[in-house]
């Protein structure tokens, strides 16, 4: 049985369908990423799976337990780290950890081997108030607290949002370490570049899952030719390129615009058509998960 199974799960807030008939499964020991912008329904999904909300439709199991009827069993075997910092800022690092250990009826010592790779980094600051930690350290403490009872499934809702690039990378290294210990991890992030650190990802938007695959599989699914184009006046270029023949889509992508070529697109002809554009350049580009996301979103 999969660690997490979700069938047609739906949740409405008032008239808004935050989650619309979502289905997926996460295997045991898998690092599964939910990738999508704000408002995609990621947090709602986490709260449903963490048994904090009741689903309107559909069923789901976590570690074999139904989220509705067995929610007490789920609560003692998952580790949950909500999107915002949810520790006590007025308690010290160690007091926070001790409290969460007591909450689950364990001691820090019993779980020390599991949290050590993470907790050791903040242990020198154990008498510091949690509210005075840096963003990266807060996340490490929160993760240590979420792991204190050796959960079989870990829910991490946007753990790297608001954390600097170095800490973000470190954080993903830590998740890889936890995965090795057999913990199933469901993690969400709005950063597409982090998706490649997951075993499999689900692209989410507006309550729907657009596609589920390995990061490589998702990119492979991009079956059109992709170009990166640039010019002095990037905005004018975007307008012109969108109107050109054989261009399926063109959108800003970092410093360049990405141009998705339709059948019948010819690089030479495109250059000739836009010959009056100052500083025009066009090179072939490798599709990324973000390109795939944009493509799926527009479909």
């Amino acid at each position: 049985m999969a660690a997490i199974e979700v069938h047609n799960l739906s949740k409405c807030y008032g008239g808004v369908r935050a989650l619309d008939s979502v289905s997926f499964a996460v295997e045991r020991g898998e690092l599964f990423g939910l990738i999508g912008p704000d408002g995609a329904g990621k947090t709602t999904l986490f709260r449903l799976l963490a048994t904090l909300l009741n689903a309107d439709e559909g069923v789901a199991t976590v570690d074999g337990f139904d989220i509705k009827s067995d929610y007490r069993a789920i609560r003692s075997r998952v580790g949950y780290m909500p999107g915002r910092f949810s520790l006590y800022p007025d308690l010290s690092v160690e007091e926070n950890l001790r409290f969460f250990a007591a909450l689950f009826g364990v001691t820090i010592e019993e779980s020390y081997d599991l949290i050590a790779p993470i907790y050791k980094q903040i242990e020198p600051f154990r008498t510091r108030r949690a509210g005075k930690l840096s963003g990266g350290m807060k996340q490490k403490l929160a993760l240590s607290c979420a792991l204190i009872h050796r959960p079989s499934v870990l829910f991490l809702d946007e753990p790297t949002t608001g954390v600097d690039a170095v800490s973000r990378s470190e954080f993903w290294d830590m998740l890889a370490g936890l995965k090795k210990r057999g913990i199933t991890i469901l993690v969400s992030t709005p950063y597409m570049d982090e998706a490649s650190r997951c075993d499999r990802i689900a692209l989410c938007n507006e309550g729907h899952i657009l596609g589920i695959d390995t990061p490589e599989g998702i990119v492979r699914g991009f079956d059109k030719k992709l170009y990166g184009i640039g010019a002095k006046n990037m905005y004018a270029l975007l307008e012109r390129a969108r109107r050109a023949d054989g261009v399926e889509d063109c959108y800003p992508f970092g410093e360049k615009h990405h141009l998705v070529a339709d059948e019948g697109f010819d690089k030479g002809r495109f250059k000739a058509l836009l010959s009056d554009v100052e500083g025009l350049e066009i090179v072939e580009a490798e599709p990324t998960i973000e390109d795939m996301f944009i493509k799926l979103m527009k479909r």
Partner: protein
Amino acid sequence: MMRGNFLSFVKKESLHILRDKRTMLIVMLIPVVLMILFGFAISTEVNNVNVAVVAAERSDGVRDAVERLSHNEYFTFKGYIAQDKIDSYLRSGKVGAVVVFAADYDRCAELAKQGVEEKPIIQLIVDASNVNTAGSATAYLQGVLLGTASEQAMFETRMLFNPQMKSAYNFVPGIMGLIFILVCAMMTSVSIVREKEVGTMEVLLVSPVRPVKIIFAKMIPYFAISCIVLVMILLLARYLLDVPMTGGVGGIFSLSLLYLVLSLSLGLLVSTIATTQMAALLISAMVMMMPILMLSGMLFPIENLPKFFQVVSNIVPARWYIDAVRKMMIQGLPLVAVWENCVILLGMTVALLGVSLKKFNDKLE
């Protein structure tokens, strides 16, 4: 194991309170400040009222009455003044009351004693810019003047239990009724709602511990603080304000403990309704403080309220508590004598606790 984690919740909650020094200080200071404020500064009692006397002739009867006045610690005799000075003395605030004796005061009194003539008339002119003080000053002044055994009273008023009408006696139970709601209800509701607002409630819920347990652990430190405050208030009342408490401190204490539990339940109920600390604070202030100030008999006697509010006041717990504490503190009744109030408060506690526990959700919606 489970007992262990209950204690660690209590410890955690105590740490929150102890680390928030400002709030802690306020909670400890407010009762003292209120007691001193209501006990001394804001008072409707007759204290140091300056009295002048107008008398055409300083006869024996007049001198006798003046003697009584100047020996009374609540009045200060400011001397004899002329009839036409009354207005200016009162206006300038030099005196708070003027006693006017008729010219033939002694003779009338003598004749009245023999039953020949009407009783002598003493005129009291009182500065009523402060209605409360004026009212009690008049009453007490009459008491002092008519107490002259040789004279026959025109009417007899006897103030029982609190003859000097010391306002502190009246205010102490009111302050108690207010403070415990403040400490217990407001602070617990804010502390529970803070967990919701900050997001820690989410993490607490996704754990094997039942929320009810977390909530009760939260209440214990506030209960302890309230007990300290209660002892402080009782000590201040007894030794600073000289409230008699002849009914026994044990009864007052037991009743107060019940009231503390009731306040805690009220706080719990507020926390199930409010989603932000600000909302919790406002609900506590509007829904709890205002009725206590207005409808509990703390400031205004319930009998003086419009009929509608008299009925409404029945559901204000503080009304029953303050009433019972007054009876025990000032009238010196034992706890059994206020059993009706106890039963009502107990019923309210059970109902509040029941409703809030039922309303308390272990999910986010």
